[in-house]
């Protein structure tokens, strides 16, 4: 018999706020975290996209100068979000060997890597910082979080582009089911608003080009959507067996009812238009949750605001839910936060958890003219979400054909 896994702590630093509370309030208020990038490198390199979802609170305002110096910006976001989640969970007393970390990034320490290359070119190899390797490695954020909370039950990093942190949460679910550990801190982060990644995403025509109206640029499901908007930040959840949580009298936000990962083997960047891999991930998740398609009442969609991606996800959902789909409340919160890449799944997991816990589904903004090819029930203003046994899923898909889905149940 499978164990019940619960969420006992949440933390985040996002384009909407430096913590969960601020982020959630601004999300419910229908605000946008997207703004113009006021940095020299935009003009210096003539970067074609000049806006993004930049972290609302600078990490340097939260961490010590030494932490800022020794952690890549992605790891800084990881630390800030994980510390908030850990404190929110009541800083649980747990044997270090029974505590694990699953913390993702999509890209890794890209700022560190590129800064170090600049240093090498300008000042030679002796001036390259000795911390460069541990700062740029993609497992850096997980390792930093693991050291911070003394997690000795395994510290792992799932890397699957924009599906990364949903996969991390699915891995955490499985890890807790094995009985090897009692608590897993799971999450994701990204800090890639740098001239190179922005130019690279722009080169593949993945990004919105609405330089003149950044707050209106991320518009999932809108007929005039023209690409995603890069975001940055971090988000973390403390996941725990129900038995362990109850024994220590923890506050419980929701049940993590399941999580599954599949792959398309179709194209390196394009989603399978049939959505069969994504559909299998949804169904596998529901099977773990002991649920049926009738049980799903809310979906926090991947919905990045790309012309192709939003339709592919719709097709996958249609394949799974059929005639039930119009009755499911869907939201696309990237409209407010932008796309946190490796951090996207974790922040959207928190939004899904809060929708269940607070009884309100956060809105999708900028939906002026819904694409007639995507006839979903999109939530455009905060909608009451109350009832018994509610189940919600959160989807994430990534370049490479990665599909990851997790399910939460009202507790």
């Amino acid at each position: 018999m499978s164990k019940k896994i619960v969420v006992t702590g949440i933390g985040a630093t996002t384009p909407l706020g430096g913590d969960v509370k601020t982020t959630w309030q601004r999300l419910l208020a229908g605000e946008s975290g997207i703004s113009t990038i006021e940095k020299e490198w935009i003009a210096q390199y003539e970067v074609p996209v000049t806006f993004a979802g930049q972290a609302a609170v600078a990490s340097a305002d939260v961490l010590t100068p030494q932490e800022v110096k020794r952690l890549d910006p992605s790891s800084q976001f990881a630390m800030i979000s994980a510390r908030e989640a850990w404190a929110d969970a009541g800083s649980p007393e747990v044997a270090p060997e029974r505590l694990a970390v699953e913390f993702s990034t999509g890209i890794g320490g890209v700022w560190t890597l590129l800064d170090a290359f600049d240093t090498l070119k300008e000042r030679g190899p002796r001036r390259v910082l000795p911390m460069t390797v541990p700062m740029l490695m993609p497992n850096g954020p997980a390792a930093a979080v693991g050291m911070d909370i003394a997690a000795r039950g395994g510290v792992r990093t799932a890397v699957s582009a924009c599906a990364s942190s949903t996969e991390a949460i699915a891995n955490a679910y499985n890890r807790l089911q094995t009985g090897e550990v009692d608590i897993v801190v799971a999450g994701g982060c990204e800090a890639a608003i740098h001239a190179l990644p922005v130019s690279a995403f722009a080169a593949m025509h993945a990004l919105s080009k609405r330089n003149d109206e950044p707050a209106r640029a991320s518009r999932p499901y809108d007929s005039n959507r023209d690409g995603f908007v890069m975001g940055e930040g971090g988000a973390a959840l403390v996941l725990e067996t129900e038995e362990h949580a109850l024994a220590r009298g923890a506050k419980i936000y929701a049940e993590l009812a399941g999580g599954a990962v599949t792959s398309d083997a179709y194209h390196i960047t394009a989603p399978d238009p049939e959505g069969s891999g994504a559909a299998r991930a949804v169904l596998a998740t529901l099977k773990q949750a002991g649920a049926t398609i009738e049980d799903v009442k809310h979906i926090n969609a991947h919905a990045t605001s790309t012309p192709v991606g939003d339709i592919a996800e719709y097709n996958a959902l249609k394949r799974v839910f059929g005639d039930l789909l119009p009755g499911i409340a869907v939201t696309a919160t990237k409209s407010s936060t932008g796309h946190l890449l490796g951090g996207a799944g974790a922040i959207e997991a928190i939004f899904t958890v809060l929708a269940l816990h607070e009884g309100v589904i956060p809105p999708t903004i900028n939906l002026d003219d819904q694409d007639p090819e995507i006839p979903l029930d999109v939530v455009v203003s905060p909608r009451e979400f109350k009832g018994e046994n509610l189940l919600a899923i959160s989807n994430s898909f990534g370049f490479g054909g990665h599909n990851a889905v997790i399910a939460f149940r009202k507790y």
Partner: protein
Amino acid sequence: MALSQTEVLAGLAEIVNEETGIATDAVALDKHFTNDLDIDSISMMTIVVNCEDKFGVKIPDEEVKNLETVGDAVNFIVSAS
């Protein structure tokens, strides 16, 4: 022109503080970098390179292992300057 021991100690203390957060007045001549100040080899290499920049001296890699205490480092820099 040779730098004074006092000048070098003050400058080194600032570099150590910036890298590790250790208070400048804790960086005294008799302190051992590893045993007293808990400075690891990665931080030590950053400190060495920053000292080279600040004091205009060259500290060869093979010399670094001999700089066990703050006093060792200060004396090396003073004599090399």
